[in-house]
């Protein structure tokens, strides 16, 4: 028995056991064990990554083969870490063993996707992951799950067709073989030799993979499933869903580069310093940043806000991947890590709020910072990290990404990522203001702080946010290993890109010093007196708690007015219209062609025969 097998199948087994043993208490223990095992083994396998590790199961006609290398160790590490925290938090929030089964199943599915070393395995585990997450959403909301299911199936078929073409042309599913073949193809194209795959076919494969991975990564304009699916499920599971499962799409894009990057690059040439096919991804990513961010700022529901913000953050990763230099792909992977960390943390915080208050809209929240200090501290870390405030991991990754994009002379993308960072501030402040500060509704006065499992889970993620932020060199080292060369220089605390340096330690030290100086000035002054929220200056009118003093609904109304024209465009509506058209078309076919009348079928047969005859068969 092999570690990889344990990593992949332990969660699945644990889930099945937890589902069978319908006992509260035991099933939690089993589930957590099922999440701990992969985490521990991944940590143990760290040394073995360099020489690599393989494992194969024979399932009937073909093998499920798994392999370990630096790239997918990185992704597996993200998956197991965030997955473990999410599963730990589910101890508090999971309602029944159904959720345990499918949450763990999707975890093992995503781990299988990361570890797969041939396309068939990749596809199978992809489907397991999609199915499990679909069941999780179905448990909560039918419409959202159906939307998610339709788009995923769309993507899955796209991937299946691409697989079929590749197998038909190259006769193998194995990554290594495909890579070899594609290299030969590339050189053949470069030197004008004849190739197995024509330009159009490779373009087709590229587009199919783009759709397949774009759906999972929530790329604009295929993002419409994400807000509903992310918001309409168990929120601690969403930490896994948005933090890890979306990374499967990112991993897919990286895989696209690994498998047929050179081929596509040579086939379609370059736009400025970026490859054309990559620039498409990057530009869609940039649009994803802006659309996701602007929509996030206008949401009235916490879960939806973070769903959109997660879409927007994935846009950064796509931009990084699309630009396609070694540095930018490293930046993308780095941001994938930090996104998993802070967004997982965010969804755990949302889970805590929902679990403790039972409310989800901003209109019912307010003043929770006094009632849930620990959760607020975690939220503080997460907010600083997402908004990209040094010295936290969010800034380090975003900084590398900015420099990677801008140094490639891509001004439009540069402007897009800058805008995205600003809009991050905007929707975060809206969350902070409506949920934590201001006047507290009287029915929230008995709110308690987070339960222990969730507190631990949040603490783990927050700790990583801070550590990797102060010492970004740790991550940079791993990323360099993936590429086998020194792309991001510097040591533990310093990131050195040649044209820019970032010293996290200095930032930390001087920030602490500055805060100390400010604190000295503060404590030299006269001491302070606490006043209630009703003792604020409101044009000197006396107020009581009956008034609502906090703007909770429509906080960014001016923004909405400014963007009124653009907000009328909705891809969600577009897809619905297309769906209705398809239904109508099916209706027409059923009434006029497949009308179950034997005579007409006979006529079709005759016409067919005639055509064949004319063809001279």
């Amino acid at each position, binding site marked *: 028995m092999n570690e990889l097998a344990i990593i992949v199948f332990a969660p699945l087994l644990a889930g099945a056991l937890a589902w069978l043993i319908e006992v509260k208490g035991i099933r939690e223990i089993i589930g957590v064990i099922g999440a701990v095992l992969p985490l521990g083994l991944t940590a143990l396998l760290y040394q073995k990554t360099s020489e690599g590790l393989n494992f194969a199961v024979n399932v009937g006609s073909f093998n499920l083969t798994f392999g370990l290398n630096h790239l997918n160790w990185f992704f597996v590490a993200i998956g197991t870490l965030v997955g473990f925290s999410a599963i730990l938090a589910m101890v508090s929030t999971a309602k029944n063993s159904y959720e345990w089964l499918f949450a763990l199943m999707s975890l093992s599915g995503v781990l299988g996707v990361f570890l797969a070393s041939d396309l068939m395995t990749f596809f199978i585990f992809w489907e397991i992951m999609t199915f499990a997450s679909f069941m999780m959403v179905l448990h909560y909301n039918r419409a959202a799950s159906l939307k998610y299911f339709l788009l995923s199936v769309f993507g899955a078929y796209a991937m299946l067709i691409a697989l079929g073409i590749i197998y038909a042309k190259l006769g193998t599913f194995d990554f290594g073989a495909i890579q070899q073949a594609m290299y030969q193809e590339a050189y053949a194209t470069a030197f004008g030799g004849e190739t197995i795959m024509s330009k159009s076919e490779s373009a087709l494969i590229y587009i199919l993979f783009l759709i397949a991975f774009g759906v999972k990564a929530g790329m604009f304009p295929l993002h419409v499933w994400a807000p509903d699916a992310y918001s309409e499920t168990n929120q601690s599971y969403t930490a896994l869903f948005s933090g890890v499962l979306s990374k499967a799409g990112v991993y897919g894009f990286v895989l696209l580069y690994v498998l047929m990057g050179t081929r596509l690059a040579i086939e379609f040439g370059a736009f400025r310093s970026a490859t054309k096919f990559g620039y498409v991804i990057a530009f869609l990513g940039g649009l994803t940043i802006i659309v996701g961010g602007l929509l996030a700022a206008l949401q009235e529901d916490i879960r939806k806000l973070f769903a959109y913000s997660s879409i927007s953050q994935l846009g950064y990763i796509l931009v990084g991947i699309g630009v396609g230099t070694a540095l930018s792909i490293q930046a993308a992977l780095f941001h994938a890590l930090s996104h998993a960390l802070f967004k997982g943390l965010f969804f755990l915080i949302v889970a805590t709020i929902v679990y403790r208050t039972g409310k989800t809209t901003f209109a019912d929240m307010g003043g929770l910072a006094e009632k849930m200090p620990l959760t607020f501290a975690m939220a503080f870390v997460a907010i600083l990290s997402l908004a990209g405030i040094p010295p936290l991991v969010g800034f380090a990754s975003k900084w590398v990404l900015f420099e990677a994009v801008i140094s490639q002379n891509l*001004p439009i993308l540069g402007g897009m990522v800058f805008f995205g960072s600003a809009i991050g501030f905007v929707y975060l402040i809206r969350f902070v203001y409506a949920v934590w*500060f201001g006047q507290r509704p009287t029915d929230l006065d008995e709110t308690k702080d987070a339960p222990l499992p969730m507190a631990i889970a949040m603490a783990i993620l927050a700790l990583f946010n801070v550590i990797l932020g102060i010492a970004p060199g740790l991550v940079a080292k791993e990323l360099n290993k993936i590429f086998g060369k020194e792309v991001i220089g510097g040591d533990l605390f310093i990131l050195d890109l040649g044209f820019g340096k970032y010293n996290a330690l200095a930032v930390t030290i001087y920030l602490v*010093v500055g805060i100390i100086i400010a604190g000295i*000035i503060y404590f030299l002054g006269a001491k302070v007196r606490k006043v209630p929220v009703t003792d604020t*200056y409101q044009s000197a009118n006396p107020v009581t708690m009956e008034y609502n003093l906090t703007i909770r609904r429509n906080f960014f109304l001016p923004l909405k007015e400014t963007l009124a024209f653009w907000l009328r465009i909705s891809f969600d509506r577009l897809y619905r219209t297309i769906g209705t058209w398809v239904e109508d078309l099916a209706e027409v076919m059923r009434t006029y062609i497949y009308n179950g009348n034997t005579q007409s079928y006979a006529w079709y047969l005759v016409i067919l025969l005639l055509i064949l005859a004319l063809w001279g068969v």
Partner: protein
Amino acid sequence: MIEIALKALFILIYATFIGFMFMGMIRIVTARIHRRVGPPIYQPILDTIKLLSKKSNITHGLIYDFGVIYALGATILAIMFIPLGNIGVLRAYGDLVLITFLLEIPMLGIMFAAMSSGNPYAGIGAQRALLTMLAIQVPLGFAIVALAEYYGTFSTYEIVMAQQSMGWSITALPLLFAAIAYDLVLQAMFGKEPFDIMIAPGEISLGPMVEFGGKHMGILQIQHAIALFGETLFFSNIFLGGAAITIFGSSILNTIATLVVLLIKQTAVLLVATFMGAIFPRFTIDQATRFYWKWPTIIAALGAILATL
């Protein structure tokens, strides 16, 4: 170690002092434009002493205090990264993107503090301030992109050094566009008309600042002074050629001369902003957003695209 600490201390004290002088200068110039005498130039220092020596202060909770302290701390952090002639503590790490972020962080602290007070005016003010920041971010981003792509480096210090040899940035056409856009952005960074809707004094009684009094306001005055210094210094470094004078024999003279040159450039930047502020009425927030997303964005994007060619 000791030397670095001394340098940092010098930068801090110098920045605070000059920042206060700048605040006084703004008030005097505005007064003269109004045909008034105006306060003495050391007026802001008196205000700060008065505010810090208030005998009673109020708080709305831990975040209310910490946000203010954090704002000042982050501002002190920011000026350490901006090269001040040839006395730089962290100028080797003075990265364009980093400094741009660091100059925005203090506002986040102020917003946290203001919002935790639960005052409706503070909420409205914070909303407007954030939307203004969102609006200025687009031209700002394009301007930074233009710089980075024109010089091929992100290090502010290297940009300054490059300008010593090849002339000021604004003599190059793409960077002239970038500079125009960035100067319009500075107007909103200083919170002066026509983009001072976030602290509209008459209507929402200073917006985010409404609840700050006593020492909180004093700390914010110091923060504002340092931020004023930092922003003008950053602008004059990246666009107006900075200063690194090496003509004199002794390093002391060089340093003094550098500081003087920088001071003149900063004052020029400041006066432009003051004149604009003194003669313009106020934009509403959506007007400001539309304005920033139209002309400055076009200009800056033009600059960025020209810079890449």
